[in-house]
C-alpha cells in the first residue's frame, strides 16, 4: 500500500476558537492510481493534500506512507520526504522568474543531492518529454500559462517521486492549455505514476480513475469514476 490513512483529523486553533477542518478520514491509495480529491472550497481538501504531501502534520489519526508512520517525523525528515517522495504542481505554477526554465526544473534536485551533471541531463530529458526543450533558456515570465504548467510538471518529475500532487493544475489556464495539462497527467499515469489531483470541478476530477469527495471535513463519497474523461484529441476543449 502506498498511502494508508486512518481516522485522520486536523484542528486549527486560533485563540479560543478551534476549527475542525478534517474530522476523521480513512482511505487507501495504491501505487499507480490516479485519484481526485474533490470538494468545494472550505471542504478541507487542500488541508488533506498538505498532510498527504508532508507539508503539514495531522492533529490525530494515522498516516502511513509506504507502510511508514508519518506523524512522528521531524521537520527535517518531512523535508526529506517531500524531496524524495513527492512532486508538486500548483495552480499558480510557482516558477522562479530569476532563473531560466532549465534551472527551474533543476531546483528540486538541489535539495536531493543529485550531481550537477545529472541534474542537467534529467532536466533536459524531462523538458523534452513535456515538449519544451526549445524553451530551455527562456525566462518563465515569457512563457504562456500552459507552457509554465508544463515546466512545473517537468519539475515535479525530476526526483522520480512516488506521488505527484496536482493542486488545481488547470485553474489558471485557458481550456486548451488545461486540456494539454490533463493529457500529460493521464499519460504520466499510464506510465505508472501515482497522481493525486485536487480540484473543485467535477469535470476535471473525472479525468481520474477514482474520486474521493470531501465535504465539511468528511468523505461523503469514495468511488471509481463511472464515465472517465479522456483528454484524447488536440481539438477537444476542456469544458468549464
Amino acid at each position, binding site marked *: 500500500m502506498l498511502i494508508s490513512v486512518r481516522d485522520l483529523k486536523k484542528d486549527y486553533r486560533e485563540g479560543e476558537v478551534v476549527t475542525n477542518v478534517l474530522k476523521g478520514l480513512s482511505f487507501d491509495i495504491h501505487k499507480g492510481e490516479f485519484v481526485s480529491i474533490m470538494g468545494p472550497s472550505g471542504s478541507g481538501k487542500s488541508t488533506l493534500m*498538505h498532510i498527504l*504531501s508532508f*507539508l*503539514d502534520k495531522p492533529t490525530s489519526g494515522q498516516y502511513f506512507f509506504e507502510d511508514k508512520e508519518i506523524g512522528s517525523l521531524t*521537520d*527535517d525528515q518531512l*523535508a*526529506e520526504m*517531500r*524531496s*524524495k517522495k513527492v512532486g*508538486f504542481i*500548483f495552480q499558480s505554477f*510557482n516558477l*522562479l522568474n*530569476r*532563473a531560466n526554465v532549465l534551472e527551474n526544473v533543476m*531546483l*528540486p534536485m*538541489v*535539495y*536531493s543531492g543529485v550531481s550537477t551533471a545529472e541534474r542537467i541531463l534529467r532536466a533536459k530529458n524531462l523538458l523534452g518529454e513535456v515538449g519544451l526543450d526549445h524553451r530551455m533558456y527562456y525566462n518563465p515570465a515569457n512563457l504562456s500559462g500552459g507552457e509554465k504548467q508544463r515546466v512545473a510538471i517537468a*519539475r515535479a518529475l525530476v*526526483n522520480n517521486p512516488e506521488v505527484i500532487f496536482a493542486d488545481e493544475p488547470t485553474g489558471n489556464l485557458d481550456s486548451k492549455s488545461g486540456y494539454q495539462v490533463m493529457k500529460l497527467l493521464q499519460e504520466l499515469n499510464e506510465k505508472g505514476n501515482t497522481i493525486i489531483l485536487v480540484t473543485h470541478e467535477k469535470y476535471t476530477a473525472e479525468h481520474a480513475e477514482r474520486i474521493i469527495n470531501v465535504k465539511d471535513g468528511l468523505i461523503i463519497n469514495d468511488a471509481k469514476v463511472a464515465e472517465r474523461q479522456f483528454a484524447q484529441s488536440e481539438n477537444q476543449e476542456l469544458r468549464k
Partner: protein
Amino acid sequence: MDFSEAVKNSYRMLISNKMRSFLTMLGIVIGIFSVIVVMSLGASAQGLILNEVKSLGSNLVGVLPGKTDPNGPPASVFGVVITTLKYKDGTQILRGGNSHIEGVSMYVQGTDVVTWNNNSPVLTFMGTTPSYINVEDAEVANGRFFADDENDSNAKVVVLGSDAATQIFGDQDPIGNQIKIKKSAFTVIGVFTKRGGGLAQSQDKEIFVPIKTAQNILLGINYINFMRIKVDKAENIDGVISYVEDTLRRDHNITNPVDDDFTVRSSETALDAISQITNAVKFFLVAVSAISLLVGGFGIMNIMLATVQERTKEIGLRKAVGAKNSDIILQFLIETIFITFVAGLIGIILGFLISWLVAVVAQTMGYKWDFIVSFGSVFLGCFVSIGVGLVFGIVPARNASMLNPIEALRYE
C-alpha cells in the same frame, strides 16, 4: 543545498536589482574603505614621524632641567624656565670617564635679529659646545666648526645652517664676513651641509655660536637649556642614563630621586611616547570609521528582511520541493555575506587606491611617505565584512526558515 548553488543565487540576487544592491552595499563599502584608509594613512604617518625622530639619532640621551613625567613633555614646553642645569654638569659627566659616552653637547638658545648689510632676518641662534658636530653627526660644508679655545674665550664666531646662510647672504660666500647679533659682530667661520627632511632640518634654519659666548654675551645667563649625550651602543643607553643620574644627584646634593631637578631620557622613550600617542589616534580613527560599518550592517539587515518578505513564495516553493530549514538559513546567510563581502572587496580596492594616491601626492610634496597597506588590514577588511554579513544576516535568514510552507505558497 550546495555552496556554489547558493553563491550563484546570491550573484543573481545582486544583479537583479542593481540600484538596491548598490545602495545596500554602500554603507559597508564606505565603512571598509575608511578603515583601510585610516589604517594605511595612520601607519604611513606614524612611520614618517618615527623616522624623523630616529633621524635625530637613536643613541642619544637627553638631559633636561627640572623633573618631568617620564613619558610626558618637558616642562619647557609650558614656557617654564628652569635654571637647574649648568655648564659644569656637562663637564662633570665627561670627567667621570664613562667609556660608553662618546660625547656631550650642551645647548642654549635664543631668537634675535641678525644683520648683514641691509639684510636683517630674525633667526634662532643656538649656543652649543664644539662637541655638537660629533654628537649630532653634523657636517660642515664650507669652512669649519668652532673649537674648544674659541668657546673658552667667548670668541665671536658663528657657523650657519644652510638655509640661514642663504637667508642672510643670498648667493654670496658667507665665510669671513661679519654679521651682527645683538649689536655684537660675529665672524662667519663655517656653513653646515644641508640636512633636509623633516624634524632634523631645524639645523638648516639656525645659526650656531659657542655656548659660552651665547651665555655671556648674547643671553646673560648661567644655565643651559638642555644637554645631549651620545652613547656608543644602544644596549649601553640604560647604563649611561643611570650613570648620568648618579653624577647629577651627587653634584646637586640630591639623595632621593623624587627630588630630582633634572630629567634624563633616551630617544627610545621619546619614540615610545610618540608611538603610543600615534597609536591611540590611529585606533580612535579606526573606531570612528567602524561606526559606519555598524550603520551599514543595519542597512543590510533591513534590506534582507524586506527581501525575505518579498520572496516568501519562493521560500515556500523551496520548502515544498525539499529544502530543510537549515538550507533556507544557509541560502539567506550566504546571500547576505555575499553582499557584504563584495562590498568589502570594493571598499578594500577603493581604500588601496586612495591610500596610494595620498602616498604619491605626499611623495611629490617631498615627504618621506611610504605607501603602507598591511596584509593585516586587508585581512581585517575581508574578515569584518564577512562578519557583518553573518551578524546582520542571521535574523532575516532565521525569519525565512521559520516561514510555514503552506502559508508561504499562498502568499501573494
